[in-house]
Structures are given as C-alpha cells and as structure tokens.
C-alpha cells in the first residue's frame, strides 16, 4: 500500500490546497510544502528500509516492493505498481524538486494560489505514477495525464513572453507535441499487446508478460519506434524538441523546475524501463541512429544556447545539450554508461533546477529575462551571483560536481561501444564551457546597467539554494549511494542489451 499512497498523497494534497485557498494565501503553500516533504520522507524511509543489493544472476527484475490489483479484466489490465532502485531515485528526486518548486514560487505566484498548487501537485502525482506503474496501460495513463496540469501551469501562470509568443501558444504546443507522440506510443503498446494475444491467446498489459513476446523483426522495429518517438519528444531529442524552449520561456519558475528537473527524466526513465528491455534487438539495431541523434542534440543545443538573449531559453537549450549525453549513455548499454545516465539525470535535475530558480529570482528583481538588459549584477545583488557561479560550474561539468561524475561515466562507459561518438561528444564539452561563461559574462560581469543595489537573498531563497549546492557537491564527491541504489535495476537493463547483442552477433 505504500506505493499507492506515494501516488495518492500529491493528488489529495492538491485537492486540499485548492480548498484551503479560502483560508488565505499561506495555507495552500504550507499544505503543498508539507505534502511534498511527506512524500520525500516516505521515499527516504523506503530507501533506508529496503535492500538494493544486486539481484541474482538471470533475475528478470529487481523489484523491492510490488502491489497489484485487477482493474479492467476484459483486457488483463491491472493496477500494478512496483519500485526498484531506479524508480526510487526518481521518486525521491520528484519529492525534493516538488518541495523546491513550492518554495521558489512562494512570492512569485500571487494569483489563484490554491489552484496553482493543485496543478503543481497533480503534475508531481502523475510523475510519481509514471515512475511506479509497470502495467503499460497504467503507465500510459499517467504519462498523458500529467500533461493537463502542466498545460494549465504554463497557460495560466506563465509569463507572456518575448517577441509576441504567448504563453497559451507555448502551452498548447507543449501539449500537442507530447500528446500526439503519446498516442503513437499507445499504438505501439496496443500492437505489442495484440502480438502477445496472437501468440498466447491472452490479453495482458503486464510488463513482465510482455517482456517475452515473440515478435518478428519488422514488427519489433516499428513498435520500438513508437515508444522511442514518444520518449524522444519528451527528452527531447533534436528534431522533436520544438516545444521545449517555448514552454520553458513562458512557464513560471516552478513549472520550469518541474519540467527540466523531472518531466524530462520520465522520458529517459521510459527508455530505460520500457524501450530497451521490451525490444532489445531492435533497440540494439537502432543504437547508432539514437547515438547520432544524441550527438546532434549536444551540439545543436549548445550552439543555440550561445545565441540566446532570453536567460530561460538559454538554460532550456543547455538542457537539450545535456540530454544528448543521456541518450548516448542509454543506447551505449554498458553498465557503466547506464549508471552514468542515472547520475547525470540526478545531477542535471539539480543544476537545471538551480539555474531556473536563479533566473526566476532575477526576474522577480529585474522584471526581465533579457540578458541584454542585465550585466554587472555581481556588485548589485548580494549572494545570488555566487550561487550562479556554482550552478554554472556544475552545468559545464566541473570536477567535484555531480554532473562531472555523470558525464564522465557516460563517456567512459560508451567509449568501448562507440569510440568515435565519445570523441565527438567530448568536443561538445567545450561548447558547454562557452555557453556557461556566456551566462556569467553577460549577466553578472561587464558594465552594470544601473548602479542601484537590488534586494539580496532572503532566508528562504538562501536555504533553498544552499540545499541544492550542497547536494550537487555531495554527489559530486561521493556518488556511491546513488550508484549502489540503481545498480540492480541497471544491471537488468544491461543484461537484456547484452543478450540482444550476443544474439545479433550469433546471427551474423
């Protein structure tokens, strides 16, 4: 039941927030914060009490906790939840970033506070559902469901942004991109289910059953593509990234934090959990394409980031660049690379969240996100530029930060599989340094636009930023707890990739 509560708590908390609005603006904020902290505590409790040691040789899964009940027996659909090291890390991240999102919108959101927190918490509830569901139908439901509150978050509380692009337009774009690609995934899921039905005569959406569906090579290829496109839109992989910069630019800070910190990770999670293990051979055959797309993403994101004037758009493009590394790591398929992906996801969640929170705080003070109007802020705001330096350093992957650990492991792990990809990708790291320095130079150094000092960080902001910096540095120096937790889950993914590789090698 713990797993069910993990999903229900944000949803119930959201409803409470909505109704608590009548007691003033503070009530929903505290309820939302309490809800997310409760969620976080529950996950941490689970983390401590569970055993994440490596599964036995040849084990098909590494669930430490499972819960299931029949739901739609006509199609063999169950409410089937399970947690392993990977999902636990992701849910812990969701809880943490959720709490941060609540804190960072404490002063930013002043209108319709209750309804705002309803949407915020429902996004998080949906995300937790995505991380826990291992019935494909349920997974798809949560996958699509979390878009609706996100849409409202951008459309109703977003900034009507630069150059005539409206927040509603951005929200609609986001929704249509992800929903349409999601329907492709639904087709792929149904294709898989009917293939399983044809082979065994049973309808089932259960992950464990579908894992061993016999598929012809072409069918597997098409179904894999269906899954890949859905995940690629959300990650985002370059030709499908059109929604991301707009959505980030228009979203409120909390929305950006959730979007970059957690929603993008659901895509990487989906690839690790579903796309690779369900279609190991097809994925293996597709890996060169995926890695190339990852490379394109790294350079495309980094180069476009250098040309942005809008601070949030810049950070959005850096996300695309970082997700290129994630994609390469996933499709490299070695254990080291996969573990690196996990570390990189966690690290990117922190550094991107930190940068978005900072840009939100700058916006509160300057009422602009246009970097041409900034400059010389180092002397004008007490405290904030120092944190910016930390997050920028983390974002470019400086040793000592968690991002370094992730990127290094991904490169190291992928080198044996695709050396040239790694060589080219390393060149992307230079571009990362370039755009990072651009941020520092344009925003914090240079001639100041005005001399008047701006409000420094208050205690709430200080604690929030300190917390993130501490986590970035801690996992940069001692990433072992992360790696230990996800090792079991990653080993299983790696085994399925390895078997596929062996089979393909045998066939050739």
């Amino acid at each position, binding site marked *: 039941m713990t797993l069910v509560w993990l999903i229900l708590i944000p949803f119930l908390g959201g409803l409470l927030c909505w109704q608590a609005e009548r007691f003033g603006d503070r009530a929903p904020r505290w309820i939302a914060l309490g809800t997310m902290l409760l969620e976080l505590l529950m996950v941490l409790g689970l983390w401590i009490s569970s055993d994440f040691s490596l599964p036995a040789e040849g084990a098909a899964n590494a669930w430490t906790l499972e819960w299931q009940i029949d739901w739609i027996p006509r199609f063999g659909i169950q409410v089937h939840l399970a947690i392993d090291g990977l999902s636990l890390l992701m849910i812990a991240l969701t809880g943490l970033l959720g709490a941060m999102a609540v804190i960072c919108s404490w002063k930013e959101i002043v209108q319709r506070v209750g309804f705002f927190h309803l949407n915020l918490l429902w996004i998080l509830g949906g995300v937790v559902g995505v991380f826990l569901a291992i019935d494909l139908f349920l997974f798809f439901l949560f996958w*699509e469901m979390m*878009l609706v509150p996100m*849409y409202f978050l951008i459309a109703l509380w977003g900034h009507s942004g630069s150059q005539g692009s409206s927040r509603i337009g951005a929200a609609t774009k986001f929704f249509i991109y992800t929903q349409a690609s999601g329907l492709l995934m639904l087709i792929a899921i149904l294709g898989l289910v009917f293939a399983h039905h044809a082979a065994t005569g049973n309808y089932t959406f259960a992950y464990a059953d579908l894992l061993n569906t016999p598929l012809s090579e072409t069918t597997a290829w098409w179904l894999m593509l269906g899954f890949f496109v859905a995940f690629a839109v959300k990650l985002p992989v370059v030709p499908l990234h059109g929604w991301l910069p707009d959505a980030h630019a228009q979203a409120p800070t909390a929305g950006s934090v959730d979007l970059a910190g957690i929603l993008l990770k659901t895509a990487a999670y989906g690839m690790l959990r579903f796309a690779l293990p369900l279609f190991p051979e097809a994925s293996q055959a597709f890996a060169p394409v995926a890695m190339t797309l990852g490379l394109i993403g790294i350079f495309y994101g980094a180069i476009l980031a250098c040309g942005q004037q809008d601070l949030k758009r810049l950070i959005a493009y850096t996300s695309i660049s970082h997700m290129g590394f994630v994609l390469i790591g996933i499709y490299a398929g070695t254990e080291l690379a996969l573990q690196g992906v996990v570390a990189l996801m966690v690290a990117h969640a922190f550094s991107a969240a930190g940068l978005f929170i900072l840009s939100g705080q700058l916006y509160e003070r300057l009422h602009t996100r246009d970097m041409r109007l900034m400059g010389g802020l180092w002397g004008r705001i007490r405290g904030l530029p120092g944190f910016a330096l930390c997050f920028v350093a983390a974002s470019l992957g400086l040793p000592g930060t968690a991002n370094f650990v992730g990127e290094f492991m991904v490169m190291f792990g992928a080198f044996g599989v695709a050396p040239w990809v790694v060589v080219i990708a390393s060149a992307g790291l230079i571009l990362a340094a370039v755009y990072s320095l651009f941020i520092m130079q344009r925003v914090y150094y240079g001639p100041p636009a005005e001399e008047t000092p701006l409000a420094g960080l208050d205690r709430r902001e200080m604690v929030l930023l300190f917390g993130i910096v501490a986590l970035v540095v801690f996992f940069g120096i001692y990433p072992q707890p992360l790696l230990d937790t996800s090792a079991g889950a990653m080993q299983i993914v790696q085994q399925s990739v390895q078997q596929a590789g062996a089979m393909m090698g045998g066939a050739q």
Partner: protein
Amino acid sequence: MSQAFVQALLAISPLILVSLTVIVVMLSIAWQRNHTLSAILTAIGLNVALLALLFGWTLGPVDVTSVLVVDDLSRFGGVLVLMSTLACVTLAHHYLEGYEGPRDEFYLLLLSAAAGGLVLVSARHMTTLFFGIELLSMPLFGMLAYTFRDRSALESGIKYMVLSAAATAFLLFGMALLYAVTGTLDFAELGASLSTRGSDPWLLAGAGMLLVGLAFKLSIVPFHLWTPDVYQGGPGPATTFLATASKVAVFLVLLRLFQSTLAFHENWWRDLLGFIAVITMLVGNLLALTQNDLKRLLGYSSIAHFGYLLVALVVNEGLAVETVGVYLVTYVLTTLGAFGVVTLVSSPYVATGGMADASPLHHYRGLFWRRPYLTAVMTVSMLSLAGIPFTAGFIGKFYIIAVGVEAHRWWLVGSVVLGSAIGLYYYLRVMVTLFLHEPGMQRRDATHDWAERAGGMVVLGVATLVILLGLYPTPMINWVSWVAGS
C-alpha cells in the same frame, strides 16, 4: 392472448409507454397549461419506460412482428436514447422558463422524437427504419425552430428540414432500388441477396443511396454541411437531443445494417468507407480549429467523433461492435456534459431576436472564477472529448485505436492520431478560455441556483460519471461486451 403476444407486448412496452406519455401530456396540456406539470409528467413517463426496458432485459431477444426486434443491442440503444432524452427534459425545463410563448409543446415533440429513436434502434426492416427516422426527425424540426422569433433558431429548423427532406429522398430511392432488385425489405434477406448478387449495379446504387441518407443524419463528410449552422442556431435542449439521442439511434441502425445487409467483405468497399472515415475526421477537426463559437465548435467536433466511430464499422469484426457500444456511451455522456453546460449558461431563455443562446466563446471567458463547479464539468467534458486519460473519452479512444490496430488498418489509426492532435488545439482553447481572467467582456452566466435544479444535477452527475468511468471502466466494458457478445 398467446404467450408470444404477451412477450412481444412486454418487450416493446418502453415504446408503448413513451407513446402513451405523449398522449397523457397532450391531454394534460389541453386540460390546463402548467409548464412544471408537463415536464414532470414527461420525466415520469420516460423513467417508467426506462424501468420497463431494464426489466424487459430478462426476456432475452424477442421478435415483435416481422419488422421490429428487441434484442440486447436495441435495449442498449434504448437506454442511451431514454437517458439522453431525460437529460434534455431537465435542461429544457430550466431553459424554457424564460420563454414567453407556449412552453409545454416542447415536451410533446421531445417525447415523439424519443419514440422515433426507440423504433429506430429496434428496426430490422426498411419500413421501420424509414418510419423511425421520420418520427425522429419531424419533431426535431419543431424543436430546433421552437424559439422561432430568434432568426437563428428559425434558420436552423428550416435548414434541417430542407436538408432532411433531401436525405429522405435518397433513403427512399435507395430502398426502392433495393426492393426492385431483390423483392424484399427485410435486413437479413436483403443481406443474403446482396451477398449472392453483390455486383449488380442497381443493388450497389441502392445500398449507396441508403448510406447517403443515413450519413446525412450522422453528418458524415461530405454530407455534414448543415451541422454547424443547425447546432449553433437551435435552442440548447434541442441541440442536445440532436447531438445525443438522435445520433445514437441512427448510428445503431447503421451498425445493424452493417451486421446484416451491408456486410460486404470486398476490399474496395472497405477502402471507400475508410476514406470517408479519414476525411470525416480530418475535415471535422480542421474546420473546428478556427471557430469562435462554442456550439459550432462542438458541431464540428461531433463530425470528427463520428469519423472515429466509422473506423469500427470499416473493420466490422473482432472488437468492432464492442467499440461502437463503448464509444457511444462515452460520447453521449461527454456531449451531455458539454451541451448541458452551454444550455445552463443560456438558461433561462432570453429573447434577443437574433442569437438567443450563449454560444460565442467569449461569453465563457473566466467562467471558472464565477462558477467553478460548472466550469469543472465543462473542463471534464472537453478533456473527455479530447480523449485524455482518466476520463471516459479516453476509454472510447482506446477502443477505437485498439480496433484499428487489431485489424492492421494503419492508415485509419494514423488518421485518428492526427485528428486527435488537431482536435486538442481547439479543445484546449475552450478549456483555457474558461480559466482566463479578463474583465470587461460581454458574458453570460448560469443562474445562481443552477446546481440545485434538476438540469444542474444531471450535468454534475454526468461529469462525475465521465470521471468514474475513466477511473474504473470495468462495469461499462463488461456491460457492453456482454451486449456485443450475445
């Protein structure tokens, strides 16, 4: 009285009860005009008919004369027709309170149309098909033009009447051709001759014309041109009936035709139908994109939804019947929710001479901050129409995609996805309009006590049902798959 006669009488009793209610309401009007009394009598009559229908289910399939059959499918259709008629009655009562002219006759028309729907879902012979369609349509002319001092309502009634007449002509010509070649009008016998003499051009022409007549009623492209105008102009309750009960009844008779008479398995036939389905989805969705009028938008969206439903008819095997059932249930619930809100916002009727209902989208701007629960209903309906998970609409869309994937009709499945993606744009636009806060716009509101009125309760109940069926669709799926399986 023989046993068989009693059985037949019991089986057809819902139709008889509805017809009796027409007479009772008419007498009560003749005796004394009382709006509330008429509405209550109508509601009682419909409820009794519904109960008779549900209890009649134990009888199993019964042939009532050689032209009507009461089986699970027709009872299923009967439930949908009666339920949506009941919802229309509750909405109409509130709506007509503001109408200066005679109000009670609306219920007579509504009941007659419901009787037509009941005939239609039980039809197994061309005569009953024709009779049902006319009995369904004729009162609708009156209902659509009921508030005839509004130009738009009058226009909508006349438009529907003229085009209906054209469709009827097609229908009759088609039947005549079929009869000329085969000498029978019974669905099953026609089907048998069609399968042996399938290539006879007169037969094909007859079947085609039959299809054109029905396609007009379902507003399938290219016979959809009347839909937006009629939806926009007609008074709220009449449009609600047109969008729910009338379409369900016609679609079910089409399904029956496809099961027996038109069950061709030639490829060109399926390709043609598939093509019609694809253009119906795309045209409906594309034309809805630029609408600034909620009722027109819903009209175009209904065109698109019947395009999706056609996918099941194209496949016509496996899960097809179940899909039609599930989709119709979810469609009726969702449409009742959406049009219910439109009608409630437009209630009570205000004479304007032009457009009486609150149909321009800007009337709904910021509705959430004035009527949060009503807006929640509208939001749920829009989400369900768009097929978002955790609403009933998603289960419907799930079935449509499943039936297409099962039959490997990839073009159709692709078009459903494309259509849904386009559709999202305008559903989202409506949704976000409800939440935007911009003062100083001309707008209308539901009355303060909307939730305590029967219509409000029905609309809230429908929205709750949409959510519940989205969360736990098993009862609906079991019911429909049982209906489809037997």
